[in-house]
């Protein structure tokens, strides 16, 4: 890479890292204000959403009706706060809308719905997003379009049989325009995913199903940017990214702590969390 390009990519990373901190603040604020939400899983996947929406996918409020734009399906629908944070930043809706989150008659409910601008599919029951994405990817192939379909699933979600049914179809139809991402945070509601139901070896399982499989630190902006640049990983094969993340990432006392799947911060926890994020912002500036 030339020095100029290197400088540019550092600039991009820096910009997105700042955004991730802003998104984390939005997530914490939203959950704290409305006294409801899925904290841990939103914090684990928000860096992936950040890179996808700001760097990888061509989805903007202005091109929603374009037939050749990319598509994103939030299969782990409970982590809707992360999606709201990113869509709000992209201008799909204004910040004041967020004050209606989970309130009477608001479209901003605890799972993604198409009543919210920028959201393409109603999710919340786990194990649906991949089949739906396979359908979209198949349609794009039929019409010889170049757009890509992205979806994020939870690692606990992988026990739903429908995911494996969809995986067979994805490979069968050679959907290299499909990008399935696993938020591999090793936790679900009850505890460690491997203690609840062992699904390892995941890498080999996905390979055997016919995916091109890649691993990435799902909380590292730079690594995420690089990995998505390589799509399609292998021509004719669906893409699968195992994004190794930390549930509750960014807030010390929430990190890798099963209690924060859907806990709401108390007043003092909220203040501490916001202070930690301010601190992260300061250290980023000093770099």
């Amino acid at each position, binding site marked *: 890479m030339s020095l100029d390009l290197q400088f540019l990519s550092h600039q991009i990373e820096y910009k997105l890292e700042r955004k991730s901190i802003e998104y984390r603040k939005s997530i914490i604020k939203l959950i704290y204000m409305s006294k*409801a939400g899925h904290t841990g899983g939103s914090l684990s996947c928000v860096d992936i959403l950040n890179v996808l929406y700001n760097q990888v996918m061509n989805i903007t409020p202005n091109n929603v009706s374009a037939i050749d734009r990319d598509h994103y399906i939030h299969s782990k*629908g409970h982590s809707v706060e992360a999606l709201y944070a990113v869509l709000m930043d992209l201008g799909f809706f204004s910040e004041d809308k967020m004050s209606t989150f*989970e*309130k*009477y*008659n*608001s*479209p901003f*409910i*605890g*799972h993604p*719905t198409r009543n919210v601008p920028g959201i393409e599919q*109603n*999710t*919340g*029951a*786990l*194990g649906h997003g991949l089949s739906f994405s396979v359908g979209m990817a198949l349609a794009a192939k039929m019409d010889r379009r170049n757009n890509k379909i992205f979806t994020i699933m939870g690692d*606990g*979600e992988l*026990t*739903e*049989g429908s995911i494996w049914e969809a995986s067979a179809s994805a490979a069968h139809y050679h959907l290299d325009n499909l990008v399935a991402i696993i938020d591999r945070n090793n936790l*679900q*509601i*009850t505890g460690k995913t491997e203690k*609840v*139901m062992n699904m390892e070896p995941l890498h080999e399982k996905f390979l055997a199903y016919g995916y091109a499989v890649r691993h990435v630190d799902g909380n590292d902006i730079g690594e995420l940017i690089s990995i998505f640049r390589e799509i399609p990983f292998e021509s004719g094969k669906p893409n699968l990214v195992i994004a190794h993340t930390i549930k509750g990432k960014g807030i010390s006392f929430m990190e890798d702590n099963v209690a924060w799947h859907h806990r709401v911060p108390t007043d003092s926890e909220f203040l501490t969390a916001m202070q930690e994020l301010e601190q992260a912002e300061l250290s980023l500036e000093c770099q």
Partner: protein
Amino acid sequence: MSIKNSSLGETNLDVFAKTLMDLADHDRNILVTTSDSRGSGKITPFAEKFPEQIVEIGIAEQNLVGISAGLAAMGKKVFTVSPACFLTARALEQIKNDVAYSDHPVKVIGISAGVSYGALGTTHHSLHDFAALQAINNIDIVAPADNFETRKIIQLAVNHPRPIYIRFGKKAMPNLHDPSKKIEIGKAIQLTPKHKNYDLTFVAIGETVAEAFLASQKLDKEGIKVCCLSLHTLRPFDEAAIQEVVSNSLAVITVEEHSVNGGLGSRVASFLMQNDIFRPMLIVGIPDDHTVNGNQGEIFRHYGIDQQSLYLSALKLLHKGKRNDD
């Protein structure tokens, strides 16, 4: 008449979990199966006390119900505990074929039923479960109203010879019953004093019974004679009780935390029509609508399932009934 002990009890969910703990202590054949749902099902203390009596399946409701049927076939008394929405939609075919059709007496426990999950939205609501299961042969359907009904029904379910579906919510419920009362699966309970004739009968099920009962008390104060039935069991359907009270009433209102299509109301209407009992009738429930967003209480008020709306609807229906008589 007033709500017995005029006290607010616990959630039916808590009562369910505690009752199961007591029962499991005496019966090592009792098993709980869960789909990453022990926390939501308040089963964590059970799991800690009886680690040998819980089987975790992971987030895989179809697999959960299929495995539970297999366990039941081998003589286990299986309580399958998972959110009602996923159990009765995702795993409906397993309930139909592996449990009901094959006749394995699994106790399918639908937690956070109806609109208990409030603002989590339609994916998490179960407004279809009565309808879906009523169309499937050989599974009893129960929705207890309060802590007493929940405790008794869980106790009865352990050795219930048929597949059974029991659903409840997660809101603390007022105590509606005298705890010395007898209860049977398939027998409605009258909450109001017995009379020869009534102006109005409420037939309600599950967590809406409390709302109907409070509306009954309000109407009673105005000299309107109301019969309020807790029809905790939708199947077997208590034809005798419905026949008796509705025959002696001028009008009837059914109340349920379920779609107005295919639930309690349509079951009652179908029974009445086919037995020549014609009364002004109102089916209160969730209409065929994109369910409004809000918490359970807000959704109840929006669709007229709360006590005040039920009170007003009763007055309106009685007025209409009178006009028709003229």
